[in-house]
């Protein structure tokens, strides 16, 4: 279990990325860009005429290994709009000595937007991983971020053989702490033990995955979010409840969070993109997101 506590070597990140997004001639694009090591971005592209720029991050190593640290520093300047995604699933291989880690710092200026839609996370047997995002946004900025966590991969095909996943998002909105979205999945000790130390519930069961295998989250902060919108989105979610268990709730400010349990990545992706399609259409006049990656 030492890999759970041993931090990666912070003085030598495996990959670093810095991206400053601004606006030029009505279109958003990088005004500053730096990358080092195994992390880089593909050439920017535009999925529609809205001016929202799309950058795709690439992990050249293909996966995270034990002790790897990846850092991303994203700034979206006033009025700029960024869509950030990954080239493929984030894979965490076995981390025998120290956990792998990704740190994301985001700064959203006035009237800027970030849509962060990474591919699903796949932790291999024996993997320990931390993901830490600190998002500092202006009160007029807009944030949409989603995440899908799979039950991982193991040679014998058994789910939940990874050691631990920690995913923490901290949102500061207008300088004030708005939300801490913290997910901690530790399959070996997810259930409460009984007198003899035997687990009485495991990660697939009561309180955790409730019999499902995949966990999806959607976090949205935007001054246009109100109780009526949350109710409307809840109705939409209700139509995606076959083989799924979902919840939505308003944050302590103009934002909401969705948690969803289901049996597959596509099912959760469909659910999340149905919700974000409504927001993209209403707020930005954009069509549903189609990343055409696969």
């Amino acid at each position, binding site marked *: 279990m030492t890999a759970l506590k041993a931090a990666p070597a912070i003085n030598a990140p495996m990959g670093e990325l810095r991206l400053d997004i601004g606006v030029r001639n009505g279109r958003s694009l990088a005004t500053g860009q730096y990358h080092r090591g195994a992390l880089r971005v593909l050439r920017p592209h535009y999925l529609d005429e809205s001016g929202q720029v799309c950058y795709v991050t690439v992990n050249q190593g293909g996966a995270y290994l034990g002790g790897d640290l990846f850092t991303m520093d994203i700034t979206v300047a006033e009025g700029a709009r960024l869509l950030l995604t990954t080239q493929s699933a984030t894979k965490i291989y076995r981390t025998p000595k120290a956990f792998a880690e990704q740190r994301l710092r985001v700064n959203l200026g006035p009237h800027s937007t970030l849509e962060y839609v990474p591919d699903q996370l796949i932790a291999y047997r024996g993997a320990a991983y931390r993901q*830490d995002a600190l998002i500092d946004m202006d009160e007029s900025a807009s944030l949409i971020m989603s995440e899908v966590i799979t039950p991982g991969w193991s040679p014998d095909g058994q789910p939940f053989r990874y050691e631990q996943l*920690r995913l*923490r998002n*901290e949102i500061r909105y207008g300088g*004030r*702490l*708005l*939300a*801490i*979205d*913290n*997910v*901690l999945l530790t399959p070996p000790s*997810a*259930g*409460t*033990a*009984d*007198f003899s130390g035997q687990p*009485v*519930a495991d990660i697939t069961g*009561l*309180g*955790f*995955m*409730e019999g499902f295998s995949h*966990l999806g989250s959607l976090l949205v902060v935007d001054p246009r979010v109100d109780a009526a919108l949350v109710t409307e989105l*809840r109705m939409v979610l209700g139509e995606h409840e076959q083989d799924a*268990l*979902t*919840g*939505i*709730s*308003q*944050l*302590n400010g103009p934002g909401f*969070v969705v*948690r*969803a*349990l289901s049996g597959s990545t596509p099912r959760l992706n469909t659910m999340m993109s149905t919700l974000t399609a409504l927001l993209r259409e209403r707020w930005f006049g954009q069509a549903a997101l189609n990343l055409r990656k696969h």
Partner: protein
Amino acid sequence: MGTQPQMHPHACRESPAPPSYLLPLLQLSDSALPTGAFSHSFGLEVYLARGVVHDENSFAAWLRQFIGQQLVYSDGLAIRLTDEALGGAGSSGAGARCTGLDSPRFEEVWELDRQVTAQALPLQLRGAGIKMGLRMLEIGMGIFPSAALDAYQEQIKSGRCTGNAGVAFALTAHGLRIPLSQMLAAYFFSTATTLTQNAVRAIPLGQSAGQRVLRLIHDDVTAAAATVMTLEAGDLGAVAPGLEIAQMRHEYQRARMFMS
């Protein structure tokens, strides 16, 4: 506060007096303390509606997960960090009494209040923590007044803090020099007692079944208090997703006895 231990001559065969904090701790963790906890199920009612929790055993399973996989990471960790920020109950300097209320130690506590509210993503759960925090603070100020509790109320009035049951409990308990491990065990067991009473009414269960569940939960409470001591500050809010989803769904469940 409390009774001073009385000195007895050696010849006296009476047993020594209990620690001065024992009775205050019993009073603070009594399920009759009017914090409004009886109005909250913390998501249990959703499990009842789904039929997942329906008897003594299934309720015990839920309660163990709620304490071990939610309370530990929210109120439990907040209680520990509050106590540590103030220097611990047994430390020299007698904790809050020798610490200026504008000191960085208190700033840490006020920041914890904001964090523990921010980590409660389900709206009703967040509301419960705030509401019960305000009640706990009021009760604390009424029976164990201290400058620290006054300062907390000031922070809340000015909008810099929201109020939280765990933080208010820890501030009160710290002023009474209650050791941290006992604060944690008492808080967890007190919550378990209230939730069991709620389950007795809502499932319903017999009173004897409720007492069996509470007996069963002793080891979980002890384990939960020990787990709190192993966590790091960044673990605050690492709540099991199924429990969170139930707490969110309670907002739109049709028939409801409870406020969360």
